[in-house]
Structure formats: structure tokens, C-alpha cells
């Protein structure tokens, strides 16, 4: 059961369909782990439906109806199968699609001894969407963000000065936060991170790397 959740502001923007694509993908992956947020989102969607139902209707030409009726045969009804029960440890389908394989098959770029990053393509031109693999007990050097960072834990967990986080937990940090996440000792941690600006290492040992940490959106 996730303990860290998106704020109601983010959930509202998600329910209204206006969260940027990469962030929406991360938030929707959290929903797969969290019944509480699913219910909250459903209510926020009900609110949208209520606003929608009370819009002042705009006249629609009769010819538009004729067009649609003429096209119904091109759009045969879709048949649906039941969504299979999700097993424990199964990744959200949306992520599986973006990964096109499992963690082992991705190409991982080595950043430090205990950190590897694999960039996934979402098509969002403003956000980097990447998986972080932190070795058990390994630490990401002290860093801040020039922009925002959304994180969702997919495997294992990590802790920082603010708390400790496990599978399904969702974190949102902005530029002011300065932290050094350390993976739990028991197993490697894999998390999804969505950034709109590159990391900036603040510890002297790694600062030289900052110019090389470029954002890779898309």
C-alpha cells in the first residue's frame, strides 16, 4: 500500500486531462498501485462530468449527424475482454509498453558506481522520462533540481532525509529540495523519474559532472 501520494492539485490536473504527457504517465502508474488515489480521481472525474453536463450546448449542424451515421460502418464496435487481475510485482501496462521489454533488456547508462539510468521515449518534448537503477545500499549523490522531479518507486525502495519510500510511493519535488536518496540495503531500487530540468549535484565530489547532465526530453 503506497504511503506517499500525489497532491490533490496534481490529481485535479490529471483528472481534467491537462497534466503534461510524461507526468500524466507517471501519475497514472501510481494509480495502478493505489486504490485510494483511484477513488479520488474517479470523484474528480465525476466533477468534470458534472461541469461538462451543464455547459451551454452549442448548435451542431444536422449534416454532422449524417456524416457520423454514414461512417458508423467504418467504425465497427470493439469487443472487450476482462482486464486480468494484476499480479503482485507486475508493472503498470503503460510502462511495459514504453519499455518494450523488461528491465534487463533496456539499455542502461552508467552515471556513478551505483546509479544507472535508462531513458524512455514518451514523445513529450518538455520532460525527461527515465528509469533509475540504484544498487542496493547505493546512494545518488546529493543533488537539487533546476525544475521539478516526479518519482515513482517500481522495485525496492530508497530513503532520504525526509523519509523512506517503497513500491508504489509517489514523490514530487521542486527546485528547492536538496536530497541524497539511498537505496535500501536489501535489494536494488528501480524508480521512474520525470524531470523538466536536469539534476544538479551539490556535493563537491560530483559537481564536475553537472555540465554533462543534460535533459533528454522526448
Amino acid at each position: 500500500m503506497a504511503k506517499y501520494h500525489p497532491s490533490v492539485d496534481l490529481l485535479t490536473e490529471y483528472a481534467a486531462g491537462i497534466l503534461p504527457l510524461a507526468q500524466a504517465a507517471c501519475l497514472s502508474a501510481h494509480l495502478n498501485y493505489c486504490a485510494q488515489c483511484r477513488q479520488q480521481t474517479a470523484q474528480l472525474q465525476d466533477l468534470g462530468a458534472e461541469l461538462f453536463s451543464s455547459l451551454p450546448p452549442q448548435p451542431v449542424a444536422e449534416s454532422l449527424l449524417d456524416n457520423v451515421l454514414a461512417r458508423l460502418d467504418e467504425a465497427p464496435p470493439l469487443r472487450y475482454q476482462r482486464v486480468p487481475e494484476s499480479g503482485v510485482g507486475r508493472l503498470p501496462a503503460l510502462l511495459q509498453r514504453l519499455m518494450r521489454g523488461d528491465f534487463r533488456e533496456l539499455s542502461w547508462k552508467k552515471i556513478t558506481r551505483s546509479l544507472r539510468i535508462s531513458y524512455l521515449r514518451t514523445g513529450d518534448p518538455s520532460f525527461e522520462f527515465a528509469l533509475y537503477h540504484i544498487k542496493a545500499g547505493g546512494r545518488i549523490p546529493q543533488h537539487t533540481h533546476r525544475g521539478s522531479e516526479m518519482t515513482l518507486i517500481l522495485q525496492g525502495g530508497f530513503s532520504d532525509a525526509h523519509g523512506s519510500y517503497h513500491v508504489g510511493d509517489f514523490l514530487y519535488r521542486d527546485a528547492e529540495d536538496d536530497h541524497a536518496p539511498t537505496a535500501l540495503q536489501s535489494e536494488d531500487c528501480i524508480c521512474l523519474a520525470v524531470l523538466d530540468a536536469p539534476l544538479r549535484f551539490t556535493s563537491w565530489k560530483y559537481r564536475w559532472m553537472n555540465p554533462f547532465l543534460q535533459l533528454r526530453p522526448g
Partner: protein
Amino acid sequence: MEDSREAGTGQAIDASGRRVDEWSECLVLIGSNQDRAAFTRLFRHFAPLIKAFALAGSSLSATHADELVQEVMLKIWQKAGAYDPRKAAASTWVYTIARNCRTDMFRRLQKFDTPLAAEDFTPEQDDEEPLVQLQSRRNRERIKALMSTLPPDQAQILAKVYMEGKSHAEAANDMDLPLGTVKSRVRLALQKLQIQMERQ
């Protein structure tokens, strides 16, 4: 829960003996029989709302608005088989499709090259428990009843976010308000509508 039908009237009755509303009934008929008459009735009711929704954001032209209406109505035809009146009011279901199509259209117009469509973002797990379903009907009724109690400034922000598709930051910019004010108005509105989390 099984739907039973009264002979001759075509009126759907759910297990608790309640009448399913006209639009849910249309969707069920489309889903089960590809009923074009039901589809036409549904079109006449929802197409003008979808058009209003398209134009609310004001960045879509009239041509795009008509395109969106067609797209949404065709999707409704195709997907009606998946509609379950126990889980969602017809208007919630239609709104969700309209919202997804509009989001996709915005992204297309911005030349996003993405493997994802907005409907892929729907969480997979369905909450099947009857309690949750019952709650969802109650939620909708409660929101409807409480909507008129919102002060105009809160109602206006909700309309900006949901209907015009503005982020909190864009709404703040539009209305010349600090971002914090926009966020707190949204939160106050959600409290009034009793859409809130116990946590936090």
C-alpha cells in the same frame, strides 16, 4: 447484478429496482444491438455539449470542434459495449471519452510524436466491489447537489481548469492571480463538494 427489462417498454431496471436514466439506456442499446436510433438520440443530446467543450478552450477552431464531435461520437459507437451502467453515469463515461479525445487533439496539433493515446492513461484495475459502485452513484448525485453552493470565484476556476483545460499556473496567469490563490480556491471548492482525502 443483472439488468432486467420490462416487456414492451424497453425500460431498463437495475437490480435495486431503479430506472436507469435515458442516456445509460441508449448506451446499453448501442452496445448490445448497435441501435442506430438510440445513437441518434444520444448524438442530439451530447454532440452540442461536446462542441461546447471543444470551444471552451478557445484554442480549437470551429472546424476542429466539429472534428472532435465526430471523433467522440464514433468512439462512443465503437466502445459502447464496454459501458457498464452500474459503474458510471452515462455523462461521466461520455465526458471521459471527450476529454481524452480533446487531449489527443491538442497533442496532435502540437505535433507530439508519441506512442501513447490519452485513453492509455486509464488505470487498469477496476474497483469491482459493489460498495465502491454504490458510492460512485452517490458521489455524482452529491456533487450535482452541492455545485450550486459554490461561490462564483471557485466555480469559475473549476470551469477554467476542467472545461478550458488550463493548468493551475495558466489559470493564475489568465486571471491575474497568484498561483497559491488559484490552488487554494480549487481546494476550497473540492472541500465544499466533499471531494477530499482524509490524509494530508
